[in-house]
């Protein structure tokens, strides 16, 4: 568990979702972890850098296509999922197992963003 930061409560809310093994706030431009709440064994720093980069690419491609701001990103793999949502050069990243409820996590992350979770 991280020390108290402006993001602690939001990250704690996300980690309580079923199947979630980690949630982080990452700087989009350099992939550095700003705050995290991870289960033991989750490689936060590496995932943060890669997730931030993926989110950045999605955001830039959306901009290139004239599709407006990218909001929510979801990556699916054989044994898990990664979710990302961003604002103000910060990206909230959540890592979850396949049993996680996508809809609930999506709503929780969008709500956190709406509530000013990333400023």
């Amino acid at each position, binding site marked *: 568990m991280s020390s108290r930061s402006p993001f602690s409560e939001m990250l704690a809310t996300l980690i309580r979702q079923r199947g979630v093994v980690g949630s982080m706030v990452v700087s989009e431009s350099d992939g550095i972890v700003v705050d995290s709440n991870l289960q033991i064994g989750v490689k936060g720093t590496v995932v943060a850098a890669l*997730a931030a980069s993926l989110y950045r*690419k999605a955001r830039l*491609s959306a901009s290139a296509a*004239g*599709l407006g701001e*990218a909001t929510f990103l979801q*990556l699916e*793999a*054989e044994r898990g999922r990664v979710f990302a949502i961003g604002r103000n050069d910060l990206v909230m990243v959540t*890592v979850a197992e396949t049993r996680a409820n996508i809809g609930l996590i999506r709503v929780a992350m969008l709500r956190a963003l709406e509530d000013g979770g990333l400023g």
Partner: protein
Amino acid sequence: MSDDVRRWSDELARDPSSHVFLNLGEALRRQGQTAMALKVVLRGLERHPQLAPAHDLLARIAVDRGELERAFDEWDIVLRLSPDNAGARKGMGFLCFQQGRLAEAERHLSAAANGDPADASIASALAHVRDSLGAPPSVPQHEADAPRAGAPAAGGQDARTVFAGVIGEGYQTALLLDGDGLVLAGAYVAPDGRDVAQEVGAQLSGVSDEAQRAMRHLELGAWSSIVFETDAAIVAMAPAPRGGGLLLVAAARDTPLGFVRRLLGRVSDRARQWLEDGA
């Protein structure tokens, strides 16, 4: 931009008959606030039903919202009010092109090119359509070649129209990119009618590798899809059937996520078949 919106809103409140609703609606549309933009332009049209630029704006908003039939109807009205309007012809041409209705696209784009010969995007799209139809290009060769898909046509089909039969009538588009982000097949026509396939491909180059690396570090196995939502669209990606590339599908924002995933599956099947035919 928000200052402009405020200024134009105030101006419109002071003088509801002002044409400033066109600026306001366009600004809101560009910000992705299509519902608000629609409201503004519809109110404007109540006062100015014969104003061609207002119908043109309404058409573009309709495209953003995936209401292609409505967009087509509005541009049709523009042409009745202003028969030489190149913008309306261009919009209708791009819509037909996106839907694989190449003969109609050629007719509209040809008229648009006559009305606005300086618009390179019209000339380029027209060259591609004529190329697909087997007609000789009437634009300079460097323009015709510029945004061309990188792969040779398989089975005699233009690489740009490979997914036309799969993606259907709505605002949906599909692209097949190689491992370097270069376009192999498909087209990406943005809501404003521009073909942005190359730009999108360039921005997404390396996504496949990065997703693979992230999954390896997380020990989550191979990645199967990435879906991201934007103000105006839902974009779904999957690994290309072969060669480390990427497959991409975009649909209007209000398209159900489950449907977009199914569409991605169908596009993947089509890409696999096309690559096998061309091998």
